[in-house]
């Protein structure tokens, strides 16, 4: 099991800064995800680890070994590609055997290891097929088997599921997770799909414009996002503009267009500071008890039925809010145009600084 350590990594393409001062460590056996929108630098970072790009500055360590000057073909990083990159002129078995032949493993051992690798990705008996006889999901399994069979120091996965259809994606991601845990191999996983990242990762680094925005477990990333970008990129986050207008104990009062809201008190708070109040769509309560806190009146703009849930679009005096509620009933009250009461439990509210776009930590938070 090999760790990965990246120190002060910088990379530019002509004038575009693809990576800026990236520092991170991946623990042995960990599944570490690089998450961000396209063009954020996540793939650049992965390819720099693989040795396909040479960084402008900074160091990459695999285990204790500095690999800055090591060519890609010596790095022993098994990569799984977005477009599968299965060699079309070779059979499935030949594809998987390729890396072993390069390593001059002898014939019998190759057969044995290829069979074992194909078995681990549930492709037994497919060895003599050619790639054009395989579905996308099967091709990606070949890619995975081919990367794993060489027993690489680390496994690198570059959006491996983005070309598969939705159902297969969910199936494959748990398979990748299981295989990775079973082998105990250190893995770096690149994706733009936040749900995938939450589902599969031990830890996540969220990237934007070549800068790491936040690093943490899926729970930390979702529950305490450090800035507006992370808050809105991972999951949905409603934002209501407001101004601090009073405090009592561990609470503050914030004046908004929808009325006064109570929120957890930040470490430092001053009267009439402008803030953005954030809350997740699933935190809102519909028709709460009349005397419950943060009860506001809103107008329904739309109601989208999604089966197990429904999404409401609400207008709170000019601010558009999204609300998600479970087990929707066929309810005439929730038709567009009607008014409802919504409760926003104060402990679920987060505060952001509209200037710096950063989270304003509340008193009880471990930031």
């Amino acid at each position, binding site marked *: 099991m090999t760790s990965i350590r990246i120190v002060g990594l910088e990379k530019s393409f002509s004038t575009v800064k693809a990576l800026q001062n990236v520092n991170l460590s991946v623990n042995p056996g960990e599944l570490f995800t690089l998450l961000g929108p396209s063009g954020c630098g996540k793939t650049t970072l992965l390819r720099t680890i693989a040795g396909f790009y040479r960084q402008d500055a900074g160091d990459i360590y695999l285990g204790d070994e500095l690999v800055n000057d090591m060519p890609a*073909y010596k790095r022993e*990083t*098994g*990569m799984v590609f977005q477009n599968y990159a299965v060699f079309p002129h070779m059979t499935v078995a030949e594809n998987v055997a*390729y890396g072993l032949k390069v390593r001059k493993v002898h014939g019998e051992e190759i057969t044995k290891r290829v069979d074992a690798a194909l078995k681990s990705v549930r492709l037994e008996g497919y060895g003599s097929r050619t790639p054009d006889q395989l579905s996308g999901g099967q091709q990606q399994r070949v890619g995975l088997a081919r990367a794993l069979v*060489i027993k690489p120091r680390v496994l690198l996965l570059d959006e491996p599921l983005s070309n598969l259809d939705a159902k297969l994606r969910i199936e494959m991601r748990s398979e990748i997770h299981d295989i990775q845990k079973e082998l105990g191999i250190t893995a770096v996983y690149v994706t733009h799909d936040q749900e995938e990242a939450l589902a599969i990762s031990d830890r996540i680094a969220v990237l934007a414009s070549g800068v790491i925005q936040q690093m943490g477990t899926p729970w930390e990333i979702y529950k305490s996002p450090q800035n507006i970008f992370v808050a809105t990129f991972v999951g949905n986050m409603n934002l209501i503009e407001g101004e601090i207008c009073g405090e009592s104990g561990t609470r503050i009062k914030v004046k908004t267009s929808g009325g006064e809201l109570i929120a957890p008190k930040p470490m430092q708070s001053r009267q009439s500071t402008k803030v953005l109040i954030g809350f997740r769509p699933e935190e809102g309560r519909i028709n709460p008890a009349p005397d419950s806190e943060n009860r506001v009146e809103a107008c329904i703009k739309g109601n989208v039925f999604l089966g197990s849930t429904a999404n409401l679009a609400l207008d709170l005096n000019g601010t558009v809010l999204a609300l998600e509620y479970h087990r929707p009933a066929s309810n005439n009250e929730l038709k567009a145009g009607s008014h409802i009461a919504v409760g926003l439990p104060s402990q679920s509210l987060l505060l952001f600084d509209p200037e710096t776009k950063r989270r304003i930590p509340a008193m009880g938070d471990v930031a």
Partner: protein
Amino acid sequence: MIRRKGLDIWSFVTLGGFIIVGLFLIYPLFDIFRYSFIDKDSGAFSFCNYIAFFSKKYYYNAFLHSLIMALLITLVSVILGLPLAFFTSRYRIAGSTLLNTLSVLALLSPPFIGAYSWVTMLGRNGFLRQALLSIGINIPPVYGLGGIVLADSLQFYPFVSLMASGALMTTDRSLEEASRNLGARSFRTFVSVTMPLIMPSLTGGALIVFMMALSDFGTPMIIGGNYSVLPTLAYNLYTSEVAESPGMASTVSIILMLCASLVIVLQQWASTRRKYSSMLVNRPKPEKLHGASCFFAHLLCYFIVALSTLPLAVVVYYSFRNTNGPVFTPGFGIDSYRTIFFDVPKTVANSFLYSLIAVILIAVVGTLLGFVIARRRRLSVRILDPLLMIPYMVPGTVLGIGFIVAFNRKPLYLAGTGLIIIITYFIRRLPYSVRSASSILKQIDPELEEAGINLGATPARTFNTIALPLMKSGIISGAVMSWITSMNELSASILLYVGRTMTMPIKVYMSVLDGYFGTASAMSTILLFVTGLALYIVNRLNGGADKAIIS
């Protein structure tokens, strides 16, 4: 793309590319350029050659003739090629595969075969002309501008039809359906939607024709009579001037090259303009025609192709006629073939040997350079890339004059060797090979090679085990195309050959001049057969020679 510092095998390939370009293109072309500014009498630097060119009618007429001729040939090619493309790609024409094959065969046939065949038909004593005379119709002999346009248009029009039908078959059908849905009739739809969509390809094809016509040497030489054009003028000037100081021939060459470069620039511009044929999901389906329109569509297509195949058929026919020296005698036999194999077996052997060696060189060097250009966009490669395209704009006559001037002295004395002919073939065809290799590679996902590298294979091993096998069929069909053009090369080698390095196209040309039509026909038939065979191979390899021609 793998970016590493330091030298690897590809650095040496790039260096090799620069050496080839420097030695076999820049050096001889610069020599011509230099000579074009030297006054032959005093040996001093002077513009007198250029002044003479534009002041003496004998010279500037050739320039005007070239432009008029190329324009007419382009026009006729579009008139022949566009309807053929339209009907064969949009409607079901019985035997359209045959039509396609025959027109491609005409396109790739030896460059002067048409000219010489039309001479045997419509020349002073041409059998067709005599036959018409006997029933009282007197048409003038075919020599001159009309003959050149006739022969060249019927050879080059497939460039237009191939490019146009390529575009016609890949335009999105729903665009035309949208036009009809909005109320436009078929003709209006064709003019306002279809034509603009295929215009870039049509322009591209027309410009290729213009270029081929402009630099064609064999046809004007054989059928042109007194109609002098730039390539024949340069050739005649060169062969009559003292070899050490080819002043005027150099000037003509430079002017010819400038015209050609201009056309190439136009063609590049046309081909980089937006192509609309991207959506491959909704290709048009050929419709079935009925009644009179069906009849006339077939008549038109078959007439065009038959007309362009006629010269080839005549040549094959004459090759089996009995001859007595230059005179055809009654009856059929294989005398002409016997003459070739007993009298000039060396010529046949030379053609095969030289073109084979050249093709191997072209395939190997072209593939390596194509890889560098597709996969390594370093500064040095970005400089090399356009340099490698120079041969596109150098007509064979110009290259031939450049070679004989530059390699007729130390340090590289190659005149009179077979090597200089091989190098000529090599350099003339190299850009096609480089470009086809790099365009094949651009269709291969670089991730495949990265996967190889990632699995521990060195760059060289990755190239051998992944890129090369995937490029194989493309490389072979490209090589076969190079082989055809090398076998049929005339315009440069005619300046460079000596008796013992004579090749088949040169022999055909000499036989035509001497009036030995039997020998010329038999030799041409052999070339034609070889061309047809090569085409068959290409077709088997990638399901269509069309792609190899227009790429």
